[in-house]
């Protein structure tokens, strides 16, 4: 485990335009957890897939507030096909955050709008209520 990645710190509740990480920090077809606030643990995770970055709150719709990885950055299943909540094994679609099976089947993860800057920074966009608008990225 390396040092905790604290993306540019900002006060809780003011996550707008926060830089979450550099694209190179997310493994190709992998995921990482990031901590934009002062929570002492990751609260958002990012999945890199087919030229997109998808951002979700690390909170399972089964028991909101329950974190999903089994170990830091371990948000995907063994073959990287789905997001998994390891609490009780719920599977989620990577692109939509929709729960495909498990206790919260039919519910969705809470997605966050992110953009990739020309410098390769993954930034959280201000309108947290807007639909997912991950930008195209070049691998």
């Amino acid at each position, binding site marked *: 485990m390396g040092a905790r990645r604290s993306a540019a710190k900002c006060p809780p509740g003011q996550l707008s335009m926060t830089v979450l990480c550099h694209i190179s920090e997310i493994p190709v077809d992998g995921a990482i957890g990031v901590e934009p606030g002062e929570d002492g643990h990751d609260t958002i995770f990012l999945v890199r897939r087919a030229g997109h970055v998808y951002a979700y709150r690390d909170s399972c719709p089964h028991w909101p507030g329950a974190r999903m*990885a089994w170990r830091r950055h371990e948000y995907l299943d063994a073959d990287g096909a789905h997001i998994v909540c*390891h609490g009780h*094994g719920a599977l989620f679609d990577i692109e939509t955050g929709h729960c495909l099976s498990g206790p919260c089947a039919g519910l969705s993860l809470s997605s966050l709008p992110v953009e990739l800057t020309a410098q390769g920074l993954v930034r959280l966009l201000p309108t947290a209520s807007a639909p997912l608008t991950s930008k195209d990225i070049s691998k």
Partner: protein
Amino acid sequence: MNITSLEGLVFGVDDVGACNEFLANMGLDVVERGDDGGHFLAEDGTWISIRPRADAQLPAPLETGSMLRETVYGAADTDTIEAVAKEMARDREVTRHADGSIGFYDDLGFALRICLATRKTLEVPAEVMPNIPNSTQSRGLNVIGVTPGAPAARPRTLSHVVYFVPDVALAEAFYTQRLGFRCTDRFTDVGPFLRPAGMADHHALFLIQSPPHIKGIEHFAFHMASPSQVLAAGTQMVKRGFQSFWGPGRHHFGSNWFWYFNCPMGCHAEFDADMDQHDDHWVPRATAMGPEASQAYLFQFREKWAPGGPPPNARPAS
């Protein structure tokens, strides 16, 4: 029905490597660890086995795909095993295994096995004892409670398992009427805490009323020797990147200290300590489940710091 221990749990999993990694990091003794499974022991010999989901030797899975494949209880003697076999044979198939154990399914489809109990009695290490002032109880002169840099202690014994069940009344009737379990306490809208008649622990099994599509395991727990060891083991897990789910804290029912972690077997894994013990004189309590009823207190991990000295930006006095 003299069932005296919760002996072991068998999982059929999707990611053997991740499960092995997790259990080794809980501090269990690694007996076997490879691509086709793993076998892990607590100090007293109780265990968890990891197998690939497709392993044909495992009992049939629940239709929900829960990764728990078998719950194994220990009996005091072969007479008990025979008594259970006879009782079960009244209305279900009983499989006899070469080691003398018997296998069958409960009324909801959870696979069970009864074997001869192997659980060993353990010494209590001196440093685990609290020094209680003005009492005869202490860990002894010059025995220190905290050894800097010492690895967290091993789990002592498998403590309990918790099932999501679609029909709590049916499940409770099976365990109490057919296997002699006792209800110790109950969350009225959730389900009962159960202990086998030959065990004093407040619960070896807890049942949670749930929708049918999530039938399966909610969590399992290992007993640590003391609350302090729960904190040490959990802290070590957090430092290694494992994800705390709930705790540390202390439950009301059972009085056990707890700290739960997410686990790659698609359930939670708990360290607990100092659970109440009961016999048949105990009168079960019942209350509605909620934050107050669920725990006496709850804390959250934070990184270490070292308060002290002058304020951080203090200028030297001139």
